[in-house]
């Protein structure tokens, strides 16, 4: 179990309607056992393809994947991997409890069915048929399926989509519980606050590549820590970008957003160069801005 997950030089090209699409374009990521890693990126960044490769659902054109020192399919066959994939419906004509029990039966050392149902907050729905669940309840059931397998590595592709706030909260506290038991967790998300709050490490992807890989604080430090917003008619993007301390610029009509590594220097230079700037706002940048900045560069 010492190896964790190793993605080594992965490349994957899909056939698209208008020619080949290089979904994953040379990815190197290692995940240590017990680590919780967020795979963060916009739609089309290659997150789901990376997960397919990691789970053995697709084969890389180049590079290799190992999961706990073996090929992904072997890790899956050995019951080391639990996954919650993106496509989100369930088979019908079974109750929630039966479906969870069926999943448990496939794994060598599952959690007790009732424990998984409780962790996912599904007790009131346990005897409900799966076709009668709402979107959020379905998602929680899929979460219970992933939990009951009690794997060494849990892979979750945008797990909290369609969950309400309460479910989301329950979900992350269950994740922290698993993490504290030493499980390795990889989740893909474009909810930036989730990656920030719940991951030990964030791997930011854009256009099939890893743009940044590090702890949330490092991801934020890598681009600006603050943004400046201003109303500024007739500003040129190139000039704004050239201002000291500015890492990135977004223009929407007269509204300007500057992502800054050094907002003090940037603000001084901005007012000197554009005395007409008004409605000035300086704000601490969350991961959202960092993320926009990082992925825009590509």
């Amino acid at each position, binding site marked *: 179990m010492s190896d964790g997950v190793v993605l080594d030089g992965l490349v994957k090209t899909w056939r698209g309607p208008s020619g080949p699409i290089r979904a994953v374009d040379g990815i190197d990521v290692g995940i240590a056992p017990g680590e919780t890693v967020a795979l963060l990126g916009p739609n089309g960044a290659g997150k789901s393809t990376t997960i397919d490769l990691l789970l053995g659902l697709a084969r890389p054109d180049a590079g290799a994947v190992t999961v706990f020192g073996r090929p992904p399919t072997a890790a899956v066959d050995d019951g080391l991997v639990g996954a919650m994939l993106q496509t989100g419906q369930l088979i019908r004509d079974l109750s929630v409890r039966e479906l969870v029990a069926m999943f448990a039966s496939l*794994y060598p050392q599952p959690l007790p069915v009732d424990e998984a149902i409780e962790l996912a907050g599904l007790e009131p729905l346990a005897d409900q048929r799966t076709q009668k669940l709402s979107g959020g309840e379905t998602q929680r059931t899929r979460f219970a399926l992933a939990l009951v397998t009690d794997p060494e590595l849990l892979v979750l592709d945008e797990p909290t989509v369609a969950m309400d706030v309460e479910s989301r909260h329950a979900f992350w506290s269950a994740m922290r519980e698993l993490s504290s038991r030493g499980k390795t967790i990889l989740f893909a998300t474009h909810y930036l606050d989730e990656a920030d709050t719940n991951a030990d490490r964030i791997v930011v992807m854009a256009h099939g590549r890893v743009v940044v890989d590090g702890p949330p604080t490092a991801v934020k430090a890598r681009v600006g820590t603050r943004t400046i917003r201003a109303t500024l008619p007739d500003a040129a993007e190139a000039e704004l970008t050239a201002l000291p301390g500015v890492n990135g610029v977004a223009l929407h009509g007269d509204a300007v957003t500057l992502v800054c590594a050094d907002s003090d220097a940037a603000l001084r230079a901005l007012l000197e160069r554009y005395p007409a700037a008004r409605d000035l706002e300086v704000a601490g940048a969350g991961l959202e801005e960092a993320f926009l900045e990082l992925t825009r560069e590509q």
Partner: protein
Amino acid sequence: MSGAAYLRFELRRTFRNRRFLFFSLGFPIALYFLIAGPNRGELNFGDSGISAPLYYMVALAGFGTMMGMVSTGTRIAGERQVGWTRQLRVTPLSSSAYLRAKILTAYALAAVSIAALYLAGAALGVSIAPGRWVEMTLLIAVALLPFAALGIFLGHLLNVDAIGPATGGTVTILAFIGGTWFPVTSGVLHAVGQCVPSYWLVQAAHVALGGGAWGPEGWGVVMGWTAALAAAARWAYRRDTARA
């Protein structure tokens, strides 16, 4: 790990789908009474050498079970569409345990369908020695093997929209060529019919009269189709890992 538990849940949810059961079991029975009922006095039906009620009992049991077997494909296509098949692939459930459960569930449905048709046949005066019932049933079960493979092949090849017309059309044509609706004893249709497994499915009725219903030719055709469609099913299953 445990394919047995997976099979148990597959059976449970298949037999819980009442509408599906009603139509897949009900149609062959209704057709049987409609077609065989008026001809119940025919003792040498269309020169086939067997009575109309017996002929149609086996023919419609064959039709119903053919439908039942390929309807596995419809369920598989549905499971693929919602991403369930991919979800199962990232569990330790082996491909063989998965396919075995699908085939055995289809056979369980077929068994119910056959039993219902036998009861209907008995109601129209079909009377055969007990040993012959068993022999006939086993022969039907063997003749269904290619259809089990066909269901899996189509289910992993086609999407939900295409699967209905594809399975319905295939079974209708095979049933027609194979002599489900009327005995085919000569001509081009007979020559063609002998090459398809549905013909031999209907021919299982002949064991009721004693003697082997299938010669080497029958076994050859059924086994040949089984081998070809099993290979096709394996191919379709393997290539089908992409997101639906």
